[in-house]
């Protein structure tokens, strides 16, 4: 197992890709012979992620964004093509793939074990992430007793727990209130400054300035869109003058006072 501490602290800012996928193909086939149809979702998708960049991946519903993400993390095997990962990876899936009857604290313990972290490190990271994403008071709540927004915070925090070099986030801010949305971007910016490569999938990217590159998934392949202006991105990093561009209604949503619901 790689030394996660060392990798996260060496601040690698070289331009060599930390994650590279080429020629990814994936077709979903009916499991019942002669019935149903096959759907070719990816037909040769290529992507490279370099340290310290934020890449947005957009596409229409059903275009294969989540399939692409699952291939990148290893949750699915491609029919063709390859994925190479030269770094530790954090994956925040679109659905919160967590255990409903465990508490938030226990969820961290479980995934800390999975990542091969020591108890002390899990505890430290849990504290940091709970503070940054504001879910400290829910640490002893069961996952199925959390609101959607808080569950998504835990979903994201689990992806960040082992301080990965590459973050793959699938619709990460779904359900976030405005403050959490801003906190998310503040956290993201600090990670990028530390050299973390981040790919964010969204069906709708309203703040293009926040991204170094935007790739559109269309007809099974990724196409790079026009480069966002760097100056605008810098302004966006300050979290100012963006309220009008807040994502959907989440911008004005607020968490219930207790943060929990049965």
């Amino acid at each position, binding site marked *: *197992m*790689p030394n*996660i501490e060392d990798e996260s602290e060496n601040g690698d800012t070289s331009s060599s890709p930390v994650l590279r996928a080429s020629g990814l193909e994936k077709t979903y086939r009916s499991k019942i012979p002669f019935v149903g149809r096959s759907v070719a979702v990816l037909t040769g998708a290529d992507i490279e992620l370099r340290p310290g960049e934020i890449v947005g991946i957009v596409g229409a519903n059903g275009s294969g964004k989540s399939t692409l993400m699952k291939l990148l*993390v*290893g*949750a*699915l*095997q491609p029919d063709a093509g390859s994925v190479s*990962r030269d*770094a*530790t*990876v*954090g*994956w925040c*899936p679109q*659905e919160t*793939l*967590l*255990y*409903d*009857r*465990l508490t938030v604290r*226990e969820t961290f*313990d*479980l*995934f800390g*074990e*999975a*990542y*091969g972290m020591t108890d002390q490190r899990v505890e430290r990271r849990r504290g940091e992430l709970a503070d940054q994403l504001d879910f400290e008071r829910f640490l002893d709540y*069961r996952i199925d007793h959390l609101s959607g927004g808080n569950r998504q915070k835990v979903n994201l925090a*689990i992806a960040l727990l*082992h301080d*990965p070099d590459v973050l793959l986030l699938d619709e990460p801010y779904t359900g976030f209130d405005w403050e959490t949305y801003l906190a998310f971007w503040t956290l993201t910016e600090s990670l990028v400054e530390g050299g973390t490569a981040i790919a964010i999938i969204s069906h709708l990217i309203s703040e293009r300035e926040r991204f170094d590159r935007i790739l559109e998934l269309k007809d099974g392949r990724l196409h790079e869109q026009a480069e966002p202006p760097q100056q605008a991105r810098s302004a966006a990093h300050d979290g100012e003058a963006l309220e009008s561009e807040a994502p959907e209604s989440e911008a004005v949503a607020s968490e219930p006072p207790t943060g929990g619901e049965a």
Partner: protein
Amino acid sequence: MSRLVTGTRLRLSELVRQPLTLSLLLVLPPVVIEMYGVAVESFPQLPTLSADPATVGRMTGALFAVAFLAGLVGLFQVISARNGDERAAIAGFPRWVMLLTRLVTMFVVALVGAGVAFAVFNYRVAVAAPGLAFGVLVLAALVYGLLGVIVGTLLPRELEGSIVLVFLADMDNALSSGLFPIEASASLPVVGDVGVTDFVPLFHPHELFTAAVLDGDLAVEHLVPTVFWVLALLVVAFVAYDRVTGEQGTGFLTGVAS
């Protein structure tokens, strides 16, 4: 080892947070044992019955209760946390360790279920060898717990999986009880002169339980096939789990992909 301990501890925490499951573990065995006893009491004393009908009914009920409950827990252990397991596996939790944590949890349920069922049974029927009888109930629970894991792996749907299990356990238990013996016939050449009931999963536990309860004996000729059933189902459970969840790798996120 640390992963196995943490995983098992958390699985058991999940389990005790399901009040309905716990209630069923406590309530169903007494109800089933008594219902079977009352239902079979009116049967005539058939030559195939090893004891009076009421005792045979209670023995059948005890085996059904522990087997079916363990089967259900095995089934839900695999189905309910399938998504979480997928993420944990990708994060680095070896899949065989995850399955092992589920099996250990299922074993704990088997022990508890067998304990409750035995306590009720022992209250109603004079048991010649209590320790032995309890051990047989645990074995029967293990057989069906593993069957539940296999059904849940191959048919990961709660309703459909439960239906399969209830039919399987009910039919198996009825055939094994001696109440409805089906002997070999010309239409069943494969089994030769052995009754087809010998091939159902609960047949040997039934014989073991009967010998332990009525005679206080360990029927070795039935112990070996019962242990074989447990080991064979264990292998099938591991293979099925590995094949079904095989597309996802393990440890990709921490760079120790396999």
